[in-house]
């Protein structure tokens, strides 16, 4: 079977969950082969092996940290060409999409973005038009390049002992045109990453700017916190947590929307959530139409009561 390359998304070797999801999907279509770019491979090795990476291509180069995206695209293109891989899977993040876009041009291949599923023949499922339609598509030219959304699949343990291949890449002049002059890591919140979380609790205009009840409920559920565009535009919560068309798209097991009316802009970012729970004062809020369970009430009383009840039940 041919190799399916998976670009490892990591910070200093700490592998993000989405990469494990990609390895699980890759195993359906061929031999999962991880591509690890940058430093910290030692910390990633066991995690990658435990999830089915029979092969790992390792490229260590300072350029990955110093310059934006292009060195990664060049390294990945080099490995995709030399390995004869049958497909390349990349996480659907801003950076992942830019890498995929450049890779597709370099390889002369078609690209599909934001897949929510990838089949054994590398055909894909996407959710489009704010979740209104499901599209099945396939790349017809070249080596399929596919970006996959977080939570597309549950990562499956598949122990393998990775065969490591160190690869040296000669970068072109184009690789060094956009220089990263400063990087400030986002302050850790102790909560799961928004796009990866299995539960998300989001607040909107109805919070009145007070996200404490939203955060407390999120912490009781081990959830990530999200925010509507209205709440972000009002400066109540950082943009990094915005759920919607112009923010993050999430697809958790449970999405709890508090004080969010449910404009198309927001629905586009959460419509594919498995279970949707709504708390809103306004019984006419359009988001109730999507709710598996809804409470018409003030989030400032309903959320703290729910949090207390959850803590009680957890003992």
């Amino acid at each position: 079977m041919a190799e399916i390359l998976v670009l490892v998304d990591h910070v200093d070797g700490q592998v993000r969950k989405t990469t494990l999801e990609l390895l699980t999907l890759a195993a359906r279509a061929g031999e999962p082969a991880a591509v690890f770019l940058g430093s910290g491979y030692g910390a990633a090795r066991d995690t990658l092996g435990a999830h089915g990476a029979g092969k790992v291509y390792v490229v260590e180069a300072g350029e990955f940290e110093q310059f934006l995206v292009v060195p990664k695209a060049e390294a990945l293109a080099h490995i995709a060409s030399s390995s004869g891989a049958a497909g390349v899977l990349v996480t659907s993040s801003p950076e992942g999409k830019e890498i995929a876009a450049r890779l597709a041009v370099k390889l002369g291949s078609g690209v599909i973005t934001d897949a929510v599923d990838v089949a054994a023949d590398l055909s894909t499922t996407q959710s489009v038009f704010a979740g209104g339609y499901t599209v099945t598509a396939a790349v017809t030219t070249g080596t399929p390049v596919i970006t996959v959304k977080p939570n597309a699949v549950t990562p499956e343990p598949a122990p393998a002992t990775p065969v490591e291949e160190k690869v040296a890449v000669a970068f072109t002049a184009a690789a060094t045109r956009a220089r990263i002059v400063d990087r400030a890591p986002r302050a850790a919140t102790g909560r799961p990453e928004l796009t990866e979380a299995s539960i998300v609790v989001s607040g909107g205009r109805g919070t009145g700017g007070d996200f404490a009840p939203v955060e407390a409920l999120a912490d009781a559920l081990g959830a990530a916190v999200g925010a509507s565009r209205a709440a972000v535009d009002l400066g109540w919560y950082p943009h990094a947590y915005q759920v919607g068309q112009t923010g993050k798209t999430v697809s958790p097991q449970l999405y709890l929307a508090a004080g969010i009316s449910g404009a198309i802009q927001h629905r586009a970012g959460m419509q594919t959530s498995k279970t949707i729970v709504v708390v809103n004062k306004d019984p006419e809020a359009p988001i109730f139409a999507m709710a598996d369970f809804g409470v018409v009430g003030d989030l400032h009383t309903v959320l703290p009561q729910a949090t207390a009840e959850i803590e009680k039940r957890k003992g």
Partner: protein
Amino acid sequence: MRIVTLVKYVPDATAYRSFAADNTTDRAGVDGLLSELDEYAVEEALKIAEAGDGVEVVALTVGPAGADAALKKALQMGAGAAVHVVDDALHGSDALATARVLAAAIGKIGSVDLVLTGMASTDGGMSVVPAMLAELLRWAQVGFVGELSVSGSLVTARRDGDTASETIEAGLPAIVAVTDQINEPRYPSFKGIMAAKKKPVQTWGLADLDLDPATVGLGAAWSVVREVVKRPERAAGMVVTDEGDGGVRLAEFLADQKFI
């Protein structure tokens, strides 16, 4: 300095969007407009133009006959000129073909220093065209930019990623895709609307760009949509009114569903 803003004409996201018989986006049966996310790029271009001397802003679109509405909006906001690439052969073009056409149009416009566009279109939403364009033109590119400044031949941009906020420097010419955090787009003024009527709009076909019609369009796309299925409406759930026990009932639902 010459700035080109890429503006896409998209079906209104608040209207009923669907697909045509050939599985392409239905652009005829729905009202279209300038993709909201591209308004931020137009605004940013105008801000740079207003802050400097001799900065020219040209709006560029690739799209069907009606797409000139997106150009008109950009001109009303304050862009100085517009270019519309329209050709029947373009119907169903994939992102890469679109990027090739844009690259050719940017070449024909000539002496372009900076290309600004939105972080994504509000229809396809792939976010790949800026990076593809950069790859084709061999220019620097920075995407998902929340803050931008241009000084001499250098752009400085802030980009907020999942794990870090980065500051990036790139030399011109460059392509920058901006988020909705970068500014607050202006509404066209009455004066702007009147002035737009006199601004030049050029219409180019593939022949004007020396592009072979066989390399664009649905037939030349490198991926294919096999099936389009309308997602079933979510079944109506249970809605209760809080009578002092709303939070407890919420917790009960979550416990029943094994979330606790």
